[in-house]
């Protein structure tokens, strides 16, 4: 018995010795969604290496806890996710399996974006017959540019706490980013005035923060219950609704099934508007601002058409 255990011990020891030295120059940031990887790159510059677990065409609610993600978590120095239950189907598993101490819940390296903004749509219900509800509130907080500021500030705090030697570098990057962002935000707010009151139907409640920021009017969701695919019955009722209530667009993400939106669009004549929802997985600095610009441009053109 002794020999067997010592064999295992020796293997583990060998693995420890073979692992790369801990003093790697760049911090590894594991982001759950591309927007947080993009924000991390804006603020971390070349002192971080950011990876996004999901791509822009993927629904972050439902991905598999793939082996490659366990390996990424194992090597991460900072975790940057939306939180609020969005990643509950896979992130806790990755954290347990990856076994990386510094990014566990409660640690400085564990950043959940929605814990640092004003959360919409909190509910106390946990009855699954009502669908896939998030009791902690709507987790899709990144589409309000004011939230980007708050979350970015918090991320910089975490960066500095993790790597105090780079305090000056990270502070300077943050200030430069926030200054540029503030200017853009003023411009976006100007453009947003024309969109106020624009009536829209959404597929899933992916857009609540955007809708609140731009003061759009959400008439309905294609999903009768969150997370449960739209039913024919519900779509029929939306078709009836659309005859009495003007709607400018049906807003969907690139990863929503297009069938329900296309069906309603064909019957009602309301155009389907696919907004980007997020940036690409490998987004480079500047792409986050482009996300808001593109979103505004697409909404403006849909608004003008009606």
């Amino acid at each position, binding site marked *: 018995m002794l020999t*067997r*255990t010592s064999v*295992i011990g020796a*293997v*583990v020891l060998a693995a420890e010795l073979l*692992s790369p030295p801990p003093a790697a120059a760049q911090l590894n940031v594991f982001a759950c969604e591309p927007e947080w990887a993009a924000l991390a790159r804006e603020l971390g510059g070349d002192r971080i290496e950011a990876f996004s677990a999901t*791509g822009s*065409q993927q*629904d972050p609610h*439902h991905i*598999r*806890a*793939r*082996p*490659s993600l*366990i*390996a990424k978590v*194992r*090597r991460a120095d900072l975790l940057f996710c939306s*939180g609020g*239950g969005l990643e*509950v*189907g896979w992130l*806790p*598993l990755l954290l*347990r*399996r*990856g*076994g*990386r*101490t510094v990014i*566990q*819940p*409660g640690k*400085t390296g564990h*950043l959940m974006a929605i*814990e*640092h903004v*004003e959360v*919409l*749509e*909190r*509910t106390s219900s*946990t009855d699954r017959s009502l669908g896939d509800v*998030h009791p*902690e509130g709507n987790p899709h907080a990144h589409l309000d540019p004011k939230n980007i500021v*708050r979350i970015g500030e*918090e991320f910089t*705090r*975490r960066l500095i706490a993790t790597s105090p030697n780079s305090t000056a570098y990270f502070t300077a990057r943050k200030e430069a980013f926030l200054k540029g962002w503030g200017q853009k935000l003023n411009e976006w707010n100007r453009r947003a005035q024309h969109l106020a009151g624009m009536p829209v139907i959404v597929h899933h*409640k992916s857009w*609540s923060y955007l809708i609140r920021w731009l003061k759009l009017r*959400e*008439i*309905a*969701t294609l999903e009768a219950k969150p997370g449960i*695919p739209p039913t024919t019955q519900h779509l029929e009722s939306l078709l009836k*609704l659309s005859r*009495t209530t003007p709607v400018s667009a049906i807003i969907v993400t690139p*990863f929503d099934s297009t069938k329900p939106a296309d069906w309603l669009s064909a019957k009602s004549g309301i155009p389907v508007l696919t907004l980007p929802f997020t940036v690409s997985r490998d987004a480079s600095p500047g792409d986050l601002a482009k996300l808001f610009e593109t979103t505004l441009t697409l909404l403006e053109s849909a608004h003008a058409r009606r």
Partner: protein
Amino acid sequence: MNRLSSAASAATAIALFLNTPSLAQSSTDIDAVRAEIRAMKEAYENRIAQLENRIKMMEAGKKPAASNPVQRTAGGRSIRDSSFNPSIGVILNGRASSFSEDSSEFAGFAVGEEGERGREGISVDESELNFSANADDKFYGSLTLAVVREGGEDKVELEEAYVQTLPDAGLPDGARIKAGRAFWTLGYLNEHHTHSDDFADRPLPYRAYLNKSFNDDGVEFSFVLPTELYSEIGGGIFRGSDFPFGSSTGGFDSWSAFARVGGDIGDNQSWRFGVYSLRGNATTRTTNEGAVTFNGDSNLYAADLRYIWAPTGNPRQQELILQAEYFHRSEDGRYSDNNANAVGVAYNEASSGWYTQIVYKFAPSWRIGARYSQLHSPDVPAGLAGSALDAADHDPYAIAIMGDWTNSEFGRFRLQYNFEELAENREDHQVTLQYVLSIGAHGAHAY
């Protein structure tokens, strides 16, 4: 927003009802009603907005200071961990089966009770009750009881009862120790509860070599290496009292080792490959309803491969899963078969078995799958000729085809057809209709 939109749609529904032509009202009447509804709607919307503002203000008031990052923890979500401590989860499981063949003996293999095919007719399957929670910052504990029908009685079986270290336990990053009773790391399926299987029954190698699954008492260590590619190694020591072992003498009669690697191919494909060994000494392992006994060394080696392709990157929409496992077993000891008057016959033989399956999710709620399993029977020593171990040169095989419908991730209905020829000229056509429902907490499933 939810309430707002439901109020709006309720108002609209009333409007539509009033709008039906059979009421034959004049257009001015309808306009008046519409105006009234609009006024009501606006009043309600204002009221709701006021209330929502109040909630927001109350929430804002309760919010801890944003400058204290370390104290925040990820909020647990009720669906995954049911707001109770410990979390409680229940799996309800039932089926109706029909078989064309009377018996389902495996030619050449000593098979335990759970390796046999299920009961014919309507039956409740293993109903599982799970309690789990973090004990503290360092340890997690889980208990799973299964109520099973065995020998005409409902029995409570202790499926799992283990403690496991959490990442904060002070072990090196990536290291983990699990102790107690658990579905240990061995191949793909063994770690998983049967309710998450893609087919209504386990493939032949699992039935013959593991009596469905290996969940002995023991302790297992695993270590995820800090490599770019996922790689993990580990091993365990077990009591040696669960199939393929018997009633343990020393209590440290079995041990295992494993290694796994895995990764992605592009954005939409992923894979994992593993090799495993489970070696040990079996003391009085009784099978075939008490007739067959084995004493000696039983060593099992396995390899598994899983490959997943999600065409759009979204496994919930569409997904193709390929999975295969290979097992090799060598046994060195003595077999007895009461039914064949064979007592303590020396035995030193090897056999192997494998299965491969493909499951395709073509729509979010619908999947189809096919599976082929095969066992290669061991040679039989002269002393066991005519016994249950005598395969008469037949290699058992089985084909399964299934289709299932998933309403949510918590409920699934499955129809499966099996064709099995486990012994020469014993062609068994089986049809099974099954449901699996999960209530309460239900953690995420592993890869």
